């Protein structure tokens, strides 16, 4: 589904779009019953974790265009926060998850206030710094975090391993639904339009009266909250946290790749990207073991996407469908006839009418 303000609305009818969403939802919900073995089910939990993280990343990256490589750290904070609330404070698992997410939301305010003052490459570097600083803190503060020995997080349910995977699959699916719904609501809102204006030209948006810093900060906190929830669920699911993996730049890089691959301006872009990249990562790990080959493949994939599908897979598919429907595409609006413009306008007026 293209973003609400996508200037090239999909030619797919609303019914077809709803049908596609229903098929996607049905496939997601029925997958645990169809999974051939517990490994596939556990891999699907990993992929769903990526999907939630990439969708959460896309609140910042997709709306504002700020590329954060530090979201892995926010997930790590959510994971460790959840684990520490359980282990150190003795709180129930899911209360710990919620409290950790709220704590990360609070911590995200000063982080955002510092990081969002810079743009472009500077923001990327600051986000990397966040990961490295937190890695050092969580490795060094062994008396509290467990340091390099890691932190064992008690599991919330007494279930067999396949059932454990199944429950967490659905918990992740529910979180993905809420994150996607929130993204969709923001996309349609004035707040979302302001964020997209920031992505296009921040100074211009500011000159038009958009309080850009506040907008960026709010969406950063929303993004951090969902990222922390996903990280917290991971802690409850996996049960063992290691700072090297929790505070890794690779996690943030994967999220960027997933969102770019699927399409950052698209509601389901990060989900599609997570499916492709997540499955590819698992495949490479299974086929080639613990080698850096999966990193090479990931790098190649990123290069291919940037070169041939800079807007992502879904927008590229949308363009392809449009090309088939319209025949040869015009290179510029000046090549459209007045009649075509009128038809185009009437068609798209109907789209607007639906959102009034």
């Amino acid at each position, binding site marked *: 589904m293209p973003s609400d303000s996508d200037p090239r609305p999909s030619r797919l009818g609303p019914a077809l779009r709803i049908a596609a969403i229903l098929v996607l939802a049905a496939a997601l919900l029925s997958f645990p019953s169809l999974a051939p073995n517990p490994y596939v089910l556990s891999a699907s939990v990993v992929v769903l974790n990526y999907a939630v993280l990439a969708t959460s990343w896309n609140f910042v990256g997709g709306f504002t265009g700020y590329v954060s490589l530090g979201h892995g750290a926010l997930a790590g904070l959510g994971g460790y926060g959840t684990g520490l609330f359980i282990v150190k404070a003795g709180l129930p698992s899911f209360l710990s998850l919620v409290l950790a997410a709220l704590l990360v939301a609070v911590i995200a305010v000063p982080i955002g206030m510092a990081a969002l003052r810079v743009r472009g490459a500077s923001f990327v570097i600051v986000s990397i710094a966040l990961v490295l600083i937190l890695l050092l803190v969580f490795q060094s503060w062994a008396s509290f975090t467990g340091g390099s020995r890691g932190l064992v997080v008690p599991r919330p349910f007494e279930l067999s391993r396949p059932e454990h995977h199944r429950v967490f699959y659905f918990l992740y699916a529910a979180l993905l639904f809420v994150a996607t719904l929130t993204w969709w609501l923001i996309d349609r*809102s004035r707040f979302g339009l302001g964020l997209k204006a920031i992505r296009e030209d921040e100074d211009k948006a500011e*000159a038009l*009266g958009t309080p850009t810093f506040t907008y960026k900060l709010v969406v950063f906190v929303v993004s951090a909250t969902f990222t922390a929830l996903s990280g917290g669920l991971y802690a409850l699911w996996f049960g063992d946290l290691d700072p090297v993996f929790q505070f890794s730049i690779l996690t943030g890089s994967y999220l960027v790749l997933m969102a770019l691959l699927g399409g950052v301006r698209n509601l389901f872009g990060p989900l599609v990207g997570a499916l492709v990249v997540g499955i590819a990562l698992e495949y490479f790990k299974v086929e080639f073991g613990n080698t850096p080959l999966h990193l090479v493949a990931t790098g190649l994939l990123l290069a291919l996407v940037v070169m041939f599908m800079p807007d992502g897979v879904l927008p590229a598919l949308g363009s392809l469908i449009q090309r088939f429907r319209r025949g040869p595409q015009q290179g*510029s609006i*000046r090549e459209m006839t007045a009649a075509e413009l009128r038809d185009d306008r009437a068609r798209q007026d109907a789209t607007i009418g639906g959102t*009034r």
Partner: protein
Amino acid sequence: MTASLETSDLRKAFGGVTALDGATVRFRHGQVNALIGPNGSGKTTYFNCVTGMIRPDSGTVTYRGKEVTKKAPHAIARAGIGRTFQLCRVFPRMSALDNVLAAVRPGGILGGLRGARRGAEIDRARGWLTRLGIEHLLHVEARNLSWGQQKLLELAGVLMGDPETVLLDEPAGGVNPALLDRIATLVRELNAEGRTFVIVEHNMDLVMSISDHIVVFDRGRPIAEGPPSTIRTDERVLGAYLGV
């Protein structure tokens, strides 16, 4: 005539280059004001300081009696000052409609969560696009518009914010005579409706034909001001432009 926008001893230097050197200026409320001067005389820097895009080294900016010197650009925009840019700026990958709707300011958190495309606002956006003659491009991405169309779209976006004072930075730059005529007519109409204009422009025919009051800058400070008839023959102005 009361002042709409005034600056006092405004100074700004970029490294060793002094862009504004004590600019004390009063632009008149309800009039079409022009700010002219040779290239590098500090006109755009002046606009940037007034609108908060860059912070002056010293001096004050006052709008309608209130000091706005240290306010953020969005706060200055909300105070009633809208602006266009010297190099036309639109949101390239957003439709013309969304470019204009982006100027709608949500009231508070709940306002921000309301739908971006509401009937009344779409009607108002359409109204501005129609008035500027580009209503037929409503759904076209801004990056696909011609330079002149982008200029009109930028202006439509500014006007959607309903500013009391509009700063236009070289509205005639790179536009054809027909479009220039349309812009001039619109400025006159909007001025008649009560909006104040401050226009930075090199096209002297346009400046002399639509301005009520002209301020001339040279080397970061005003050297002359008055009605077009006076400025046209002012020796300091001729000296600044011709280097004599």
